[in-house]
């Protein structure tokens, strides 16, 4: 069993993620947020397990269901709420919304809302990370060298291409895996399999039993883990990240989880049964972690209840602050000036 402090950190992040989603749903229902949202209730272990296993300087490119990843990478919940209110204080100044919460300071590129299109972008980050670490022709085009057989070049940091089971059918994902494999790029392909691509069950849409089986086609390691078990996810990411940092190239990790809510706010969930949903609620990743922590005497029930209260109060407070300044929008001129970068922009 992993260390007590790590479990406490994980539980706090997972609670923050859950309460953030609950608050978001409430604000949408109250008509205070425009547009749509994609909630990740039930996927917290997959998100916290990944982010806690990463080092400072490791990049993520999340999916459109990005709130949990963004919180776990360290972004301010207030700036995230502000983004959804469309205010200038949002992570993307109110130009992104619920699906787009890039945060350069926290090594989060932001997600693509074209499912699977973030995967080549993450592969590009990995290219840059490797390019900066090598002094030799690691991607040699000369006939004498083949990057596939070059000795491993260790890298300090890696990037994580996060995608869902639905996106696993995109050509961009397959092309990226092939490219990352031949150039041994430091990228972790992280398939967050929540069993449905919108309404489409992955077992009907994916040709293999497990998305991770496809790793074999790209000569890279593939593994599947229980995505509702924080410890399992954390350990699997640590193992994959160590392999990648040694310079061995990419890995494909598939984390099996379940989204408790519908695809988006308009989803009536006609494609699945309430029995199935009930079964998964019993495997709530937060519940499982709390049970484990009590069993290991890491925390008492009372301490957990107190933590839950303080996390919820914190999220409420941050939503309140964001709401208070939600009327402060970018001016039309400021918006137009953001279409093109200028010479003065820092890369």
């Amino acid at each position, binding site marked *: 069993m992993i260390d007590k402090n790590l479990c406490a950190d994980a539980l706090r992040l997972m609670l923050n993620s859950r309460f953030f989603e609950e608050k978001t749903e409430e604000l949408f229902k109250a008509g205070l947020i425009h547009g749509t949202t994609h909630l990740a209730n039930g996927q917290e272990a997959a998100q916290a397990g990944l982010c806690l296993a990463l080092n400072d300087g490791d990049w993520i*490119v999340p999916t459109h269901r990005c709130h949990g990843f963004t919180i776990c990478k360290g972004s301010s919940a207030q700036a995230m709420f502000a983004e959804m209110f469309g205010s200038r204080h*949002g*992570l*993307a*100044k*109110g*130009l*992104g919304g619920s699906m*787009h919460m*890039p*945060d*350069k300071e926290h090594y989060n*590129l*932001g997600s*693509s809302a*074209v499912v699977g*299109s973030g*995967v*080549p*972008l*993450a*592969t*590009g*980050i990995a*290219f*840059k*990370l490797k*390019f900066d670490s*090598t002094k*030799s*022709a*690691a*991607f*040699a*085009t*000369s*006939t004498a060298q083949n990057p596939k057989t070059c000795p491993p070049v260790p890298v300090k940091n890696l990037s994580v291409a996060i995608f869902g089971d639905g996106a696993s059918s995109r*050509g*961009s994902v*397959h*092309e*990226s895996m*092939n*490219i990352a494999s*031949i150039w041994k790029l430091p990228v972790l392909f992280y398939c967050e399999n929540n069993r449905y691509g919108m309404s489409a069950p992955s077992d009907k849409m994916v040709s293999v039993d497990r998305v991770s089986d496809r790793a074999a086609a790209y000569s890279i390691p593939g593994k599947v883990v229980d995505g509702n078990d924080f410890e399992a996810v954390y350990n699997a990411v640590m193992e994959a990240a160590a392999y990648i940092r040694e310079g061995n190239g990419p890995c494909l990790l598939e984390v099996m989880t379940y989204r408790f809510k519908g695809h988006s706010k308009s989803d009536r969930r006609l494609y699945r049964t309430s029995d199935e949903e009930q079964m998964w609620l019993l495997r709530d990743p937060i519940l499982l972690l709390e049970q484990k922590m009590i069993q290991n005497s890491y925390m008492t029930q009372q301490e957990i209840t107190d933590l839950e209260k303080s996390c919820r109060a914190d999220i409420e407070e941050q939503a309140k602050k964001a709401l208070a300044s939600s009327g402060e929008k970018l001016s039309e001129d400021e918006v137009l000036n*953001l*279409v*093109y*970068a*200028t*010479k003065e*922009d820092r*890369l």
Partner: protein
Amino acid sequence: MTFREAIRKAMADEMASDKNVVLFGEDVGVYGGCFKVTEGLWKEYPDQVIDTPVSEEGFTGMAVGAAMMGMRPIVEIMYADFYTLIFDPIVNHAAKTHFMSGGQFCCPITVRLPEGSGTGHGAQHTQSPEGLFLNGTGLKLVAPSNPSDAYHLLRASIRDNNPVLFFEHKLLYPTEGEISQTPVELGKAKVIGNGLDVTIIAYSHAVLTALETAELLREEGINATVVDLRTLNPLDKETIFREVRKTGRAVLIQDPNGIGGIDAQVCAAICQDQKTFASLKCRVLQFSGKDTPIPFSKDLERLTIPQAKDIAVAIGKLF
């Protein structure tokens, strides 16, 4: 120096001054590129010339990600026709990155697209798709017509902090010209000649047609000014308006078909500017490619592109 050599030199000079300038593309290494534009580049810059698998969407998306990290990638798409495969990384991602991140990320990628007909490659290897990118807000579009502009504009494109699509007409590759010592900025058209009778506006290969037309007109006693747009987005409206007002006659020439294209945009701009519109002495003449896929057969292929002789005859009727 040829147009082809000028493009290679621009890449080499940028690679020398910035290690983060990297070329991705199919067969751009030892092979030298499908049109021999990158020949020998890999020997000088082995770390910066990278042969890719046949995965246009994948490696262009990868270059977009690398650009967001501060690299200045150049992507060579073997034939511009394969633009369909890079629409998602370029239009949905590169073009919108700076905006959607609230200015946190730039995307200084340059995509080189060899385009145009006259080579007998059939309808999937001869298109000029620049017009299709006009709606991709956030992109800059560049299409030089001569070696000097190709050199300076490619350097400026690589250094620009925005995504730039750089269209190279394949028939221009062997054309020769001196490289000027003066750099050229993006967004500035070039004025050739000072005829006061008619203003002919063109870009890329069609500039050669425009110059040939001007020559034919001169024999008829009609003096033309030719405007080479050079940058297609953003358009240098100031120069367009000034030069059209000067003659009161605007003639637009482009190689691709006319629907929703660059010239349609130029025409719309002329019509919407009160002073320029008021200066017109006759209707605007637009000569575009035929509205058909490019045929293979040599004579038919030639007929799809506007010809100087026909244009000169039509212009002559304005007087």
